[in-house]
């Protein structure tokens, strides 16, 4: 418990408090009057209103489209399932710059919809909502589906034998067991869309602005720290409120579940209903996830001399870029993987410890409060954290401002909540009596954890690792703001290439995005496939 708290205090609470303090204090006196002044501005109220309703709409739409997907991935067997599961997670890690480009190609002028039906959705709210579904589909499928696949179907069957109808059995048995995971997923999606930045900037055009975009503008562009501080506090309050509601629902619903090996619970689809559902889900994945990704691939191959790999070849040398980079863009892949690896390790250790501490029955109110605190990094903008680092981590022994470790640290901050969210429902569902039995038989707490919890949660650990890894691979905000010696990550490299005119640059940006997609998909596939023996290794 001590380690996560210390990590959280030094790398999150302190920097954010410092930057907010800088905005709200003059000569050591708190100026709380500024809060009212900022919140009475009509332009700020517009931003608040838009932020809230688009997040609600995005969350509802995502659940509607992704819950059937979660069921299909959890309960049905079909060829290519592993691959598809990895593929739907790819969007989650793509830099928003790339996603914006892909969606413009689909929904904008001359895009697919335009050619087929003359429909143009760019600069409308629909483009933003669809892009949000695209981003967050995997969150629901992995969080809900991960648990669903481990629920024992025989419980539902028992209810059926006892005379419950199919729907009633599902509603009485499966739904209550799933509820915490659904709530967790909905909460995450809401948080993500509430704090959406790149998507809104690119697809919404200048007319739509979320709180996050406004904080970025006020901080990075205008250096209006008072306004930024007030907005940060508003975001804090909103996120805190959401988390409080969430904690309350989870506490009411948590019961020890009987978890089984996911391999036993899925079967090939039987009957018309299941086949139709499978077909529908595959179609929605095709339209929403594969199509935008496909557009990127198509553009990366579409050279002026017909289709070919010219752009990919150009990536290998620094010269072809007029030395846009001092290193070939391909080196960015190595940089990205290294950062992501370090960030994942940090997130797993911190998040794992926190989750373990939170599942203790003796965990008091204080610890539960910490649970909510751990989620806060998701609701704080990258620019706030980055600028907070600048003014706090500037003295030895913690002068990290020019160190590479700052990037994975910032990425891990965003990864930890994922690790905690993914592991907590599963850890809490482990029957305490097993732990007690181990303790009675003389196992140390660590041993008990290793022999009892770990085998049951290994899958959750892998899912969590996959998420943390993916998040840091595509993380763009913090990576851009935090000064780094010039070794660009993939998203930064893509953004730089897009920031230049010329066919080769555009093509290389698309090629690099495609490579980023593949790297993510492969990394996630490897994680899915890991079959460790019963050792306590991650």
């Amino acid at each position, binding site marked *: 418990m*001590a380690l996560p708290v210390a990590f959280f205090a030094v790398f999150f609470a302190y920097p954010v408090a410092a930057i907010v303090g800088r905005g709200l204090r003059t000569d050591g006196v708190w100026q709380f009057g500024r809060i009212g002044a900022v919140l009475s501005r009509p332009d700020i109220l517009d931003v608040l209103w838009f932020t809230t309703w688009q997040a609600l709409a995005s969350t509802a739409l995502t659940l509607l489209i992704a819950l059937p997907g979660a069921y299909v991935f959890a309960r049905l067997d079909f060829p290519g399932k592993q691959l598809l599961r990895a593929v739907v997670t790819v969007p989650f890690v793509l830099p928003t710059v790339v996603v914006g480009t892909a969606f413009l190609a689909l929904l904008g002028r001359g895009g697919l919809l335009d050619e087929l039906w003359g429909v143009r959705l760019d600069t409308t709210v629909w483009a933003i909502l669809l892009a949000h579904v695209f981003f967050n589909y995997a969150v629901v499928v992995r969080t809900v589906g991960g648990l669903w696949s481990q629920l024992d179907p025989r419980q539902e069957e028992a209810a059926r034998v006892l005379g419950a109808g199919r729907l009633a059995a599902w509603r009485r048995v499966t739904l209550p067991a799933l509820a915490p995971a659904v709530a967790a997923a909905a909460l995450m999606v809401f948080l993500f869309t509430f704090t959406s930045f790149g998507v809104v*900037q690119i697809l919404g055009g200048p007319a739509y602005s979320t709180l996050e975009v406004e904080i970025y503008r006020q901080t*990075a562009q205008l*250096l209006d720290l008072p306004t930024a501080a007030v907005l940060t506090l508003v975001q804090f309050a909103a996120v805190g409120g959401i988390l409080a509601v969430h904690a309350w629902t989870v506490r009411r619903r948590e019961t020890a579940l009987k978890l089984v090996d996911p391999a036993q619970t899925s079967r090939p689809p039987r009957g018309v209903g299941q086949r139709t559902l499978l077909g529908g889900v595959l179609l929605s994945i095709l339209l929403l996830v594969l199509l935008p990704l496909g557009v990127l691939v198509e553009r990366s191959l579409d*050279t002026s001399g017909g289709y070919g790999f010219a752009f990919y070849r150009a990536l290998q040398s620094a010269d072809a870029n007029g030395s846009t980079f001092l290193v070939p863009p391909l080196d960015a892949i190595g940089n990205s993987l290294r950062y992501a690896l370090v960030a994942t*390790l940090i997130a797993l250790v911190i998040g794992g410890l926190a989750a373990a501490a939170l599942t203790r029955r003796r965990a008091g109110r204080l610890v539960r409060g910490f649970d909510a605190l751990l989620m806060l990094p998701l609701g704080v903008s990258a620019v706030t954290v980055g600028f907070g680092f600048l003014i706090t981590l500037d003295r030895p022994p913690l002068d990290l401002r020019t160190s590479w470790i700052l990037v994975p640290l910032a990425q891990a901050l965003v990864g930890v909540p994922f690790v905690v969210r993914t592991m907590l429902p599963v850890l809490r569902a482990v029957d305490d009596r097993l732990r007690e039995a181990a303790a009675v038989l003389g196992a*140390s707490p660590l041993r008990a954890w290793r022999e009892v919890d770990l085998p049951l949660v290994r899958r959750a650990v892998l899912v969590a690792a996959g998420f943390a890894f993916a998040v840091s691979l595509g993380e763009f905000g913090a990576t851009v703001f935090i000064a*780094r010696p*010039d070794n660009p990550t993939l998203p930064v490299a893509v953004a730089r290439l897009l920031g230049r005119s010329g066919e*080769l640059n555009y093509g290389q940006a698309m090629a690099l995005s495609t490579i980023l997609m593949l790297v993510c998909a492969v990394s996630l596939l490897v994680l899915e496939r890991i079959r460790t023996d019963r050792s306590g290794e991650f």
Partner: protein
Amino acid sequence: MNTTTKYAATALAAALGVSVLAGCGGADDGAAGAGAGGSKTVTLVSHDSFNASDAVLKAFTKETGYKIKVLKSGDAGAALNQEILTKGSPRGDVFFGADNTLLSRALDNGLFTPYKAKGLERVAADTQLDADKHRVTPIDTGDICVNYDKKYFADRKLDPPQSFDDLLKPAYKNLLVTENAATSSPGLGFLLGTVAAHGETGYQDYWKKLKTNGVKVVDGWEQAYNEEFSGSAGGKKAKADRPLVVSYASSPPVEVLYADPQPTEAPTGVATGTCFRQIEFAGLLNGAKNEAGGKALLDFLISKRFQEDMPLNMFVNPVAKDAKLPELFTKFGATVDKPATVAPDKIAKNREQWVQSWSSLVVK
């Protein structure tokens, strides 16, 4: 709990150890800690667009014995604001990238130690905006201008626009795409250009007319140029339908350089009467750990060698009069004789208000 914590601490230490061994070491010489203030390293803090050839950076090390470490942090505005936040305990020795639209903010915050760079007499006088104090040294200039798609206008036997006033003509209705002046530097430059051309009161009227004539505003340069402008490579693929875009005078040469095969003529042209001049400066940071190295670096940034290397790395024009432009620029670029300018102190005083009234006029 104790054992768990110990175990975890060991794991974390091991993890960090492993990662350092895994090769993160190769990429950073100024490892964590002392802020890389060794007398043999000079640190340049800049925005993401800074670039120089490897050979040129090595030449500097050979001449002076200092290794250059480059730190990049976001776009021009964000990078400068980070320096302002950390003033007094800077992350580096020299900052590059304060342009004339941001210069007053940098100077008013006392970011820089005055230093007159060696060879300053070779630098064009009209770029030296702090000539009496030398707190900053001009390094490069660039022009923000409307670019046009040559093919579009040739096909329709229509002359492309040449001035701000031309853009209001019915012949060019619904053809222009520009960037959000609040978030994008070319967008801001274009707005300032209209202020220079039509005055501090007349510019609002100009934008009302421009809006009536169907100007489209998108958030950033990337989207405007690669997605909306029909003359760029990206725009062609996206079947873009706006043949006029706010970009840079150096964009046409770049289109040529990165086309495969390279055409004999640039696909895009520059409307030379719509230009706003940007000048970028560098300065020695107040509280720099390596002042001597910082001064040597400033001398180097205006040296002939660096100035001639710059155009093809950053697509900007040199300020040193003895630096020759590469053929690509002379052959495909446009020379802008009378770019619009607005005095830095005037920009500092009015920028927020201009941008805000622009937003309410054009975006909302």
